[in-house]
C-alpha cells in the first residue's frame, strides 16, 4: 500500500519537478559577461592567461546549469555597472553590493556570497584620522564610503594594484573587501607592513554580494537564481569556494 501511494505521489510530483527542472529558457543562448581580470582570488588570469577565480568560476557554473554559452569580456570595477546598464553586456560577473544607486541601473541576482570590509592600517591608526591617505579601488563601494566620510583617498583601478601604494608609502591605510584583503596577505612585502585588519562594522560596507543583470534582460534573473540554487545544492558552489577561498563565504 505505501508503495502504491508513493507511486501515485511520484506520478503527481515528478511531472511538476520535471516541469520546474533543468530546461532553461536561455538554453542555447550566448550571454555576454563582464569580469575583472585583476582581482584575485575573485577574478583573475591564471598562469596560462585564462580567466578564473571565484566569481568567474561561479558564472561558468551558472552558464552550464542554464545550458547557455557565456562570452567573457574584461572590464574594470569603475566601468562595469554602466556597461551592463547600457546593455553592452548581459551579466556583470563582478561581485556587487546592492546599493540604491545601483538598483536604479541594474537588476540584481540572488546574492552568491556575503562579504565585509576591512580597515587595513598600522596599529593605532584609526579610520578618519587626519593626514591619512586611504587606498581604495575606484568605483568600489569602499571608495564611495571613503569619499562620503571626507577622507583623502588614493584610487587605484584594480584590486591587484591595491597593495602597491601601501608598500610604496603613498597611502597609509586601505579600505578593502575581505577577499581582496586575503590576497594582499599573500604578499611578503605587504605582510612586512604589519598592518592590522579591523572589521568595519558599517552596514553599507558589509553584506550580500550579487551579480548584476542588464535591465534589458530581466528574464535572466529567475534563470540565474534557479541555477544558483542548484549549484549550491549539488556541491558545485562549495567546490569552487574551497578552490579559491579559505572558508565558506555564503
Amino acid at each position, binding site marked *: 500500500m505505501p508503495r502504491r501511494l508513493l507511486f501515485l505521489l511520484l506520478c503527481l510530483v515528478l511531472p511538476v519537478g520535471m516541469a520546474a527542472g533543468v530546461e532553461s529558457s536561455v538554453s542555447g543562448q550566448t550571454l555576454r559577461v563582464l569580469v575583472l581580470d585583476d582581482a584575485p582570488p575573485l577574478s583573475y588570469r591564471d598562469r596560462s592567461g585564462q580567466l578564473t577565480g571565484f566569481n568567474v568560476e561561479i558564472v561558468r557554473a551558472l552558464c552550464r546549469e542554464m545550458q547557455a554559452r557565456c562570452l567573457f569580456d574584461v572590464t574594470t570595477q569603475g566601468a562595469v555597472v554602466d556597461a551592463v546598464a547600457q546593455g553592452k553586456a548581459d551579466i556583470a560577473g563582478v561581485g556587487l553590493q546592492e546599493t540604491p544607486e545601483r538598483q536604479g541601473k541594474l537588476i540584481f541576482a540572488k546574492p552568491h556570497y556575503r562579504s565585509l570590509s*576591512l580597515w587595513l592600517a598600522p596599529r593605532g591608526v584609526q579610520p578618519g584620522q587626519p593626514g591619512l591617505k586611504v587606498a581604495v579601488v575606484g568605483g568600489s563601494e569602499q571608495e564611495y564610503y571613503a569619499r562620503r566620510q571626507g577622507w583623502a583617498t588614493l584610487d587605484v583601478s584594480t584590486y591587484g594594484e591595491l597593495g602597491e601604494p601601501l608598500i610604496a608609502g603613498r597611502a597609509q591605510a586601505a579600505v578593502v573587501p575581505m577577499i581582496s584583503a586575503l590576497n594582499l596577505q599573500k604578499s*611578503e612585502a605587504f605582510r612586512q607592513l604589519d598592518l592590522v585588519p579591523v572589521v568595519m562594522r558599517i552596514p553599507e560596507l558589509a553584506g550580500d554580494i550579487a551579480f548584476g543583470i542588464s535591465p534589458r534582460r530581466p528574464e535572466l534573473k529567475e534563470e540565474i537564481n534557479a541555477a544558483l540554487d542548484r549549484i549550491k545544492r549539488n556541491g558545485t558552489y562549495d567546490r569552487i569556494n574551497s578552490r579559491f577561498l*579559505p*572558508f565558506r563565504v*555564503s
Partner: protein
Amino acid sequence: MSAVIKRQRGFSASRAFALLAAVFLVIFGAAVVLLAHDQQRVIDATSRLQEQTVPEIIRFQRLARNLEQLRQEGERIFAVNSHASRQQSMFVVTLIASHPSILEHPPAAQLARETEQFLSEIVRQSVRDDRRPAAYYDEWQRLAARLGTQVDDVSIQGVDLVTSDLNVATEAMKLARYKLMAVLLLFGLFLLVFVVLVRSYLIKPLQAIDRALSNLSVVQPAPEFPPTAMREIQAVEEAIREQHALLIQNEQVRHVLEQLANKDGLTGLMNRRHFMQVAEVELQRAQRYRRPVTVAMADLDYFKKLNDTYGHAAGDLVLKTFADLVREALRQSDLVCRYGGEEFAFLFPEIDPGDAAKLAERLRLRCSETEIALPDGRSVKVTVSIGLADASECPIEIALKRADEALYDAKHLGRNTIVLAGEHTEARTESAEPYTARLF
C-alpha cells in the same frame, strides 16, 4: 386505480440511481479532496525540504565548515614558528569570526569571538616571545574542543531540520494511507450496496417478469408480482397483467367466434362443415381401432308443407324443438348436425347399425309423440324419416351417401320410419303409405 396508487408509492429507477450516483460522487469527491489535502501536505513538506530546509542544511554545513576552519587556523597558529604565517592565519580567523555566516548564529558567533580574542592575544604575545604560545596550548585545546562540539551541534541542527520535515511528510503519508484504505473500504461497501439494490430492485423483479412472460397463457391465472418500489418495474408488471387480461378476452372472443363458425344458428347443433370435420376424425379413429360406427341421415317429413301452412316461424320452432329432442334422445357421444334445411346428419360411435337403429327409433318415437305448441295457440306434431348406414369400413362421404339412400328408402316406405342401408332397396321403386306424417 390500484395500479396508479402503487405507482405513486414507488419511485423512479432513473431518479433513484441518479440519487445513488450523486451520493457516490459526493462521498468520493469528499474522499478525493481529503486525499488531495494529504497529498498537498506531502508536496508542501517536500517543497519546503527542497526550497527551505536543504538551503538551511547547506547553511549549517557551511557554518560548521567555517568553525572547523577556525579551529584549523588556531592549530596552525600554535604549530608554526613563522610570525608571518601566524599573521596570515590570524587574518583568516578575523575574517571568519566577523563573517555574517558566523554572526547570524549567536552561539557560534560568541565562540568565534572568544577564539579570535584568544588567538589574537597569542599572536600578539608571539611577537615578543616565540615560545609563549606553547604555554597556552592547553587552554587552546579546551577552546578547540568547544569549537569541535559546536561543529557537531551545528551539524545536528541541520539534520534535525530534515528530520522535522520528513516527520511531517511521513505523518501525512500515513494519514493518506489510512484514508485511502477507508476510501477503498467505502468503495467496496458502496459497491456491495449497489449490487444488493440492483439485485433487489431490478434483477429480481426482471426475473419475475421473465417468468411471468414465459408462463403467460389463458390457462394460467393472472400473474402475481411481489411488491416492488420501482415505478418502471411496476409499469411493466401492470402491462403484463393487462396483457393477460387481453389474452383472456381474446380467448373468449375466439371461443364465441368458433361457436358461431361451428354451430347452426337456429338449432344450436353442429353445422355441416364442422360435423364433417369432427365425423371424419371420429370415423378414422373407429376404423383404426376397428370399432363399430354408424352414420344416419334424418329428414322431417312434410316440412315444406308445414312451412307453407304455418309459416316459417313455426317451421323454425319445429326445427329447434326437433334439435332439443335429438339432444335428449341421443347419447352425449353421438354427433349430430343440421345438414341443410330440415335434413340432419348423425354419427353414432361404438355401435353398429343395429344398435344405432334402436337409438334412432327412440328418437323417431319421441318425435312422433311430441306435440309442439305454436305461438298462435295451435300445435303440431312432426315425424321424421331416418336412414342408417354402417360407416366402419368406408369413408364418411360414402357412408352418408348410403344413409341418404336409406333415408330415401324410408321416405318411399311411407316416412316416419327407419331404414338401414341395404335392407329396403326395393322401397325406392314404390312408395309406402304406413309412415305418412300426420299434420294437425
